[in-house]
């Protein structure tokens, strides 16, 4: 995907020069391997800072809520679905945006590369088509991209943007016959006690830094429930009940809104598989309402609808 870079620069430059947008949001090449930095540029001459490769896993839709400018933004399949969700939830208007669509072949999981290096420090990662090469002092190893994809990318079924103004390249083939919920079914099959133990184990390294929440485009509340201080709903220590409360409630808030972009898991500094929480809700919403987030601007997500004639009494 590195070859998208030139096209992105060209489009950004054109949009800024013509005054069609006030700013352009993309990535610049990172200062460490497998990391790129979200960047906002306002001048056409800065377009050459823009960069694209398989390490752009942060979801740029996160930078949109409540902005007032006209914005050019690059968007992978998942980002575009979160943009749709933002538009539906009135966080930004469609008219403000020029969406530069990225037909995406997935993002590299830096933990998988680090694991394969077995403790040796990876100082450079290069990509050429589907070939990823990681190197460090005294070693060089090549991988097929499909073997080192982020977990969410490996099971992605919406690689092409669902909404865009122009594409940087022809659409890529969507993955077919993907079993999206194998890991979730394994948890569902557990007894209540086993689930409790599983979740406790899962979050045991959590340091409550909230990188998962803050990397998530859905978490735009002015004040998050864990940050409420009057009254304070959740304890702030690393007590397991409080930490689990945070993770569970965060996941519930994302039900019917999560695109499984994987930004949460990517951001976690201690490697927690936080998608285990959100994905269960994503699965439930798919099964109960046949709903996949961010595919249409025409409909609101199932769990944020209120109807006076709702068949359930309790909402009335």
């Amino acid at each position: 995907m590195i070859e998208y870079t030139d096209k992105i620069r060209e489009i950004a430059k054109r949009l800024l020069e013509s005054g069609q947008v006030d700013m352009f949001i993309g990535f610049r090449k990172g200062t460490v391997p497998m990391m790129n930095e979200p960047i906002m540029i306002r001048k056409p001459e800065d377009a050459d800072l823009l960069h694209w490769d398989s390490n752009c896993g942060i979801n740029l839709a996160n930078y949109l809520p409540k902005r007032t400018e006209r914005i050019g933004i690059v968007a992978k399949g998942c980002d575009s679905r979160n943009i749709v969700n933002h538009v539906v939830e009135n966080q930004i208007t469609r008219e403000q945006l020029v969406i530069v669509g990225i037909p995406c072949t997935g993002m590299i999981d830096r933990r998988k590369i680090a694991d394969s290096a077995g403790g040796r420090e990876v100082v450079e990662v290069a990509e050429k088509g589907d070939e990823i090469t990681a190197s460090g002092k005294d070693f060089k190893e090549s991988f097929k991209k499909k073997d080192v994809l982020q977990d969410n990318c490996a099971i992605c079924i919406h690689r092409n943007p669902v909404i865009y103004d122009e594409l940087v390249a022809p659409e890529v083939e969507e993955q077919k016959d993907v079993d999206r919920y194998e890991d979730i079914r394994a948890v569902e099959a557990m007894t209540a006690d086993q689930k409790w133990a599983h979740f406790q184990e899962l979050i045991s390294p959590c340091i409550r830094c909230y990188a998962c929440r803050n990397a998530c485009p859905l978490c735009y509340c002015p004040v998050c429930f864990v940050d409420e201080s009057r009254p304070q709903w959740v304890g702030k220590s690393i007590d397991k009940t409080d930490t689990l409360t945070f993770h569970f409630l965060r996941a519930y808030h994302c039900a019917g809104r999560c695109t499984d972009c994987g930004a949460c898991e990517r951001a976690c500094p201690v490697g927690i598989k936080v998608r285990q929480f959100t994905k269960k809700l994503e699965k439930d919403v798919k099964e109960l309402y046949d709903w996949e987030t961010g595919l249409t601007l025409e409909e609101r997500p199932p769990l944020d609808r209120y109807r006076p004639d709702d068949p359930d009494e309790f909402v009335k």
Partner: protein
Amino acid sequence: MKSIVVSKDRFRSVLDAFSRDYEVLVPVKEEEYFAFKKLEEGVDPDFKFQNTRLSPKQLMQPQSEKMFAYTLEPEAEDAGILSEIPGEVPERLVVGIRPCDALAVQLVKKNFETPEYQDPFWLQRYEKTLFVGFACNDPCATCFCTSVGCGPFHEAGLDVLMVDLGDRFLLKSLTDKGKGLVEKAGGEAAKDKDEKALNKAREEAEKKITCTVPTDKLADQRLNDLFDADFWEEVAFACINCGTCTFLCPTCWCFDIQDEVSRNNGIRLRNWDSCMFPLFTLHGSGHNPRDHKSQRVRQRFMHKLKYYIDKYGGGPACVGCGRCVQFCPVNIDIRRVFEKMNSWASPERKSA
């Protein structure tokens, strides 16, 4: 000062001997990263690591620490009276702390032990802890310790410096307590060739640190010029306001004190806090002086690279460990910020 060498085969027995007198904390690999754990049966110390994911600051300042307990039972004589929870800290020995993290403890100490205030919780732990530092033969590509008054073999804050010489460790005492430890380890006295090997390892390690940051102008920069500099919005754009940088940083010490009450029993605890969080500065009135993320990002870097220098007259509150560089989810790189702050010339001053 005394130097000995201990063969690696025998090192575990040396650690076991130490653990008769101390709680010994050693680097252990857990899942994907290293952490300091108490040495006991079944715990396998592993010295083939670059650094621990979280800094060892938590050995002095745990993420959550119970300070006081109280009852609100109306009948109780001591209702509502705080009583200190006795912290029984054993004599501890940290084996394998990296020189950057040991220097960080000294930088943090300036905050917890001042002429006006001595923090009993932090100091109690510190005073009961000995540090056996582990020289870095293979620093990370992101290390820039040599630019910020530290180095891969730096000795500040250590009782013993331990160096990997291939088939053996050299242990060099740096304090009286360290000398006692080295004697207890019972290795052979280091010979000339060991000293030479140490010097060679140090020279090679220092050469491997290729990444530098400029700091020479930070002390002389005008605080207000830096505060008003035009780059903060740009630096902060990507920031998602999580606590990764502050929680992983060995020199971030900020905390928040909270009461938690269950039925009639209360505890007062203090937790790590982060200047990246809006709640950190939210006033009781509802006003927040750092309401915008660029103000919070500026605060973190100004504190480390300017206020700390101005207040204590030394270097910055950064030891170049590179944790924030490696783990910031959006790749905000403190090395770029050093560059910007050090070279900043405000437009008014330039034209004056």
